[in-house]
């Protein structure tokens, strides 16, 4: 932890900015109920009220307090995105490492299976699965996780392939270590950096995907607020020059940029390039 802080102190400005933003978001997400002036779906007035002292960001299409929605939105959006990405990466990298270590037919089988899933149009596949399993948050998380896991698998496998040829992995194998040990102790720690970088990007894409799905009518159940759906709900206002939908969109944008700043910084450290 101290080591991290030490790193952070010497990080470039962009990375510092990124971390600050992310921490802020996380804080908001965690303390949402405390921070929010109203209830998540509480109707506090008329629709589309202007910004005011009691409704900092005005009200939304149903007269719910925009600020409150934004704050709870942080919670739902980030929460769901996080869980999804974590599942995707757990599954994806486990499979990827496994394939890399086992090589041969196991690798072939897994890789081909992944090819199949990847080559099906993501959105359509999501559409199919969500219609099959119903558009609950759990199935939403599950489906998106599954689809992303395939991408993660490819990266994880590629990275692991580079690692299994290392002497220390061979040493462990010749020592007689089991598969689980090799994956956990020898490969995982060394595969971490690129995976973390990917994690950042995917994490952002998840709630883009979610908002895309909610555009097609599947997504997070109301009245739960998530930024993707909030953009969706008010998007058409922008065509009249009304900037309401920009607020959640900006929230997503800012987070993405922030996360990627951190990712870039980590990649840079990993690449060992000085300038």
């Amino acid at each position, binding site marked *: 932890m101290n080591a991290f802080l030490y790193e952070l102190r*010497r990080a470039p400005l962009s990375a510092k900015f990124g971390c600050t933003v992310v921490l802020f978001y996380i804080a908001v997400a965690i303390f949402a109920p405390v921070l929010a002036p109203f209830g998540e779906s509480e109707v506090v007035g008329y629709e589309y009220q202007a910004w005011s002292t009691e409704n900092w960001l005005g009200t939304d299409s149903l007269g719910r307090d925009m600020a409150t929605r934004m704050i709870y939105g942080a919670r739902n959006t980030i929460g769901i995105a996080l869980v999804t990405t974590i599942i995707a990466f757990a599954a994806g990298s486990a499979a990827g490492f496994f394939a890399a270590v086992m090589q041969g037919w196991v690798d072939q089988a897994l890789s081909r299976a992944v090819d199949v899933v990847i080559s099906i149009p993501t959105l359509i596949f999501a559409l199919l699965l969500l219609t099959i399993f119903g558009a609950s948050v759990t199935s939403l998380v599950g489906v998106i996780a599954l689809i992303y896991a395939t991408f993660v698998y490819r990266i994880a496998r590629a990275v692991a392939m580079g690692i299994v040829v*290392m*002497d*220390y992995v*061979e*040493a462990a*194998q*010749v*020592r*007689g*270590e089991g598969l689980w040990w090799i994956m956990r*102790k*020898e490969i995982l*720690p*060394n595969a971490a950096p690129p995976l973390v970088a990917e994690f950042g990007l995917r994490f952002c894409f998840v709630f883009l995907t979610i908002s895309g799905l909610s555009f097609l009518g599947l997504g997070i159940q109301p009245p739960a607020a998530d930024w993707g759906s909030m953009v969706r709900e008010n998007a058409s206002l922008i065509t009249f020059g009304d900037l309401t939908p920009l607020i959640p969109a900006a929230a997503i944008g800012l987070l993405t940029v922030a996360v990627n700043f951190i990712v870039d910084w980590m990649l840079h450290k990993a690449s060992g*390039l*000085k*300038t």
Partner: protein
Amino acid sequence: MTQDTTPLLMMQNLQIEGLSEDRWTPIVKGVDVTLGKGEVLGLIGESGAGKSTIGLGAMGYVRDGCRFSGGTVHFDGIELTTADRETRRNLRSTRIAYVAQSAAASFNPAFKLIDQHTEFPVRRGLMSRKEARQDAISLYRQLQLPNPEEIGFRYPHQVSGGQLQRAMTAMAMACRPDLIIFDEPTTALDVTTQIEVLSAIREIVDQFGTSAIYITHDLAVVAQMADRITVLRHGSEVESADTASMLNAPQEDYTKSLWAVRSFTSAKKAAVSEGQTPVVSLKTITATYPGMGKPVLDDVSIDFHAGRTVAVVGESGSGKSTTARSLMGLLPPVSGGIELGGAPLAPDFRKRSKAELQSVQMIYQMADTALNPKQRIRDIIGRPMTYYRGLKGRQLTEEIRALLHSIELEPDQYINRLPSELSGGQKQRIGIARTLAAAPKLVICDEVTSALDQLVAEGILRLLDKLQRDHDLAYMFITHDISTVRAIADEVVVMQQGQIVEQGPKDQIFAPPFAPYTGLLLSSVPEMDPTWLDRVLCDREAKRA
């Protein structure tokens, strides 16, 4: 070689700093170098001495994250440290050229050799593309590259290391520069190849009267190439003198110690008593890589006895490492057998029992790739103990500390470090410790010293020797370095193209009459005598005639 009065290159109190843990720390601490026209200066020192940094500095170039922090570099009157990019860039190729350590890595894989060769002569308008190609071919010829007309039109990966190294020397010559920096040009090569490259370089330097800075850690080599030698350590000069006096009468202790390196030899051991079963023995094993017709190991038989060292010598591709891999069960032999204490051993390591795996352990050449960079010393050494011997808790810690002691590393200081926090030699020691932690019977040492500086290597050899006596270990010692073999081998196995060409006790092998290949190997090992290279070359001429 005559010295011109006005020096071509003058570095005065050169200081270069590097960014580490983003603090600027000195790498070169005020070095003076003067180089006359047509003169060859040898820069020698161990890794971290700042040889290469100085060499590059002579071109007015510093690597990413480094900077000139003081002193001057005057090249033919131009001050390079302050000169603008443009000027410095225009000097390169045309007036100063560079020959890198690994030609394989320093040629752009995407282009043909000759195109890389002619790039700058043409760009700088020195010659037309056609002329440049002609010139390249003639240079290739002079450097004795096989079929010079054609070789330039290959891609780097299609050409062998030795040839690439010569092609790169040719490329350096392309614009007939006044100064060439040779940065360890032969370090990565086999001795027999090295000798050719050395002769080629020297010939061409002589012919064009080019000045050169020759950077190496190998005294014997520099002795052949340089007019003057400068010894460096930790970024500053130790001493500098012309080659002869430097070799015969070194002033500084450090220099002396360098000179003294090759003094170590292990104590002579009693011969193996008749009928003693070897710890491990290879019985006529033959191995092939899947999908390749011709075997990489052909009918190899070696016995390894407790407390004795079998050195396996040969050049890259001779199959010495492959033998080790077959023994380890990583490349199961297709015929022949491996025996452990007389009992047959499964060819594939996956089929071997814990005990069997335990009894044969391997030390890798590259400590960097052999140690998991994300594990602490405690875990690296501790794991085999836990895994094979079920040690836990305090007992485990005790063992680890004891082991660290025996490899001469202070436990409290090192037990919790990461490999990245160790020097090359220390890493190699940890590698050794890891094998010992398994309490094996046979230890395979695969080129364990070749990546290390001589003094460090020396230390490792001593350590191995000590450990062997303490634990009555059998060693399989794989190396291409004859002097190392001389130092520690009991038996010697000479390999070439997957076959054993000669094997027997050290004295017998290293005493005339030599088997032809062994002879070639031995004669190719550079000696301190500055005249060695000429001598050998003459002999070989004579032999050919």
